[in-house]
């Protein structure tokens, strides 16, 4: 009888401890920059995210961004609520082991238009942290690259490319877009150019040979 009671009480005890810790968490003092009407709602959203084991720092930062830009309370609350939802969707796609930085980048990618399936594929394709690939993906879409093209390019590179290679790839795309190339074409070309290191013309250059 006693073991049964123990097994039943344990989850309840854990839930009480977690809930107690959540309620005992002091509101972030930085949120005092929000007006009195907005602050309680944002604090509640942050607490809910904490209870759901989502990173709370991005939510605080989004609220502070709104405060610095003198946005309305409604706009701040809407932005924080939307980001919390995006973080949750990102975790669904990337898994519970995803780091806060990965979740933040994943939320940005989802907001840019990437699908949860794309995020899940990236997690499957790459063992290293996904922060930079996700950042590049979101960045490409924000630059006007169609989300399918951006996702295909990043997925193609993510398996082996290092973070520095991905950043360089992003720069190449940015340069070509700046020079007038259509974003989708620039992405596809840069993704391939990053891989074609040997071309027929390269062997004709021998510096210094008389």
């Amino acid at each position: 009888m006693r073991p049964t009671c123990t097994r039943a009480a344990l989850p309840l005890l854990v839930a009480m401890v977690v809930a107690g810790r959540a309620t005992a968490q002091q509101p972030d003092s930085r949120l005092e920059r929000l007006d009195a009407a907005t602050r309680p709602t944002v604090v509640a959203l942050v607490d809910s995210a904490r209870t759901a084991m989502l990173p709370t720092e991005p939510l605080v930062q989004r609220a502070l961004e709104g405060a610095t830009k003198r946005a309305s309370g409604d706009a701040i609350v809407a932005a924080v609520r939307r980001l919390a939802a995006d973080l949750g969707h990102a975790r669904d796609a990337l898994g519970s082991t995803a780091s806060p930085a990965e979740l933040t980048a994943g939320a940005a990618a989802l907001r840019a238009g990437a699908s949860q399936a794309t995020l899940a594929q990236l997690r499957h394709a790459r063992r290293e942290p996904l922060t930079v690939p996700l950042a590049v993906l979101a960045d490409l879409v924000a630059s006007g690259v169609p989300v399918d093209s951006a996702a295909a390019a990043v997925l193609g590179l993510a398996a082996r490319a290092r973070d520095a290679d991905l950043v360089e790839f992003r720069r190449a795309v940015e340069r070509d877009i700046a020079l007038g190339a259509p974003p989708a074409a620039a992405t596809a070309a840069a993704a391939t150019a990053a891989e074609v290191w040997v071309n027929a013309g390269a062997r004709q250059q021998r510096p210094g040979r008389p």
Partner: protein
Amino acid sequence: MRPAPAARHVWTASLAAATSVFGVRTSAAQTTATVDIGVSTVRYDGFLPSAAGSLTPALTWERPGAVVTARGTYLRFESGRRSLQGLMAASLFTPPSLLPHRWRGELSLSTGGSNYADFASFWHATGEARLHYVGAGRGAWIGGTGGRTSYGSAPRPVAVAGVGVWARRAQVTLAASATRSFVGDTAYSDVGATIHASRGRFEVDGSLAARLSSHGAGHGVYGEASTTFTLGERTALLISGGRYPTDPVSGSVAGRYLSAGLRLRTPLLRPRPIRDPPLPSRSPANGDGGGSADVTARLEVKPAPDGTVRLVVYAPAAATVELAGDFTDWQPVALQPTSEGAWESVQHIPVGVHRVNVRIDGGRWTAPAGTTRTTDEFGGEVGIVAVP
């Protein structure tokens, strides 16, 4: 020294046709130019060693999927004789959508000529088609070359078949190839490997090759190495040396050499970037002052080895520059002027995606150039930067 008129017309027409077929858009191109000034000691097979001074200008035009290079070399030997060489080569890749995933086609065109002391002259004009398989960090190709070459006599046909593989890991690229060449009644096979590596200011290239089954083009093992040390944005030191075989296509004679030189690079020549459109009109939710609202700033993010990140804003006409982002808790940080038009601050910024805005002379918060601009949910815009 120069291709015959007929050859030039064929080459020009081929380039124009290929440009059309491959969809090259000149608007996205960029051009770089270099001049190498050097001294060499060279010993051509069958000749005495000689010192020489060289001048090698080169012009490279490139855009995604296409590269065109023109280069010339003026050599002045210690005997007072001179040699002139010129080469123009182009590589055009098929668009990714034309062939199945991971496959790319390449058309390469090459024409050039050389002249030594007014009595020996060569020219060649060739075209090569390659099919590339491009994997993750590795690839392979198969190709064929056709064309003509002349050594002051009737042109001879050129035919080359080749295969190659390559692999790249980090900053090192390894490649190996095998070719069988037919130039008139001369035939030979080359097998070889190359390596390219770069680290910091250094770039190193090396090659090792062997000529086999040769009828009229010599036998042997050959190797070359070169290193480039970047001195500044527009200067580099070059050191190279080795032994290379006779090339019946371009007309170069086998020899061994050691060279040192200085490379001067021009600034990048390219059309004015069009990425930064006029900023949107000020939103009531997006600013808190007047100031120089129309001043456009440019942000550069420079991670340092010690984990800090140097943020440099270029705003030449500004009196004050502030920055706020999710790494400053969105508290404005005043940047310090450092050099002409540059303002900077050093911050501890964790790896990841960050949002940032810049304010000039107390004006509105704007997304600086150099970041990816997006709407900020508060009626304005925000810049996105990734810190790797």
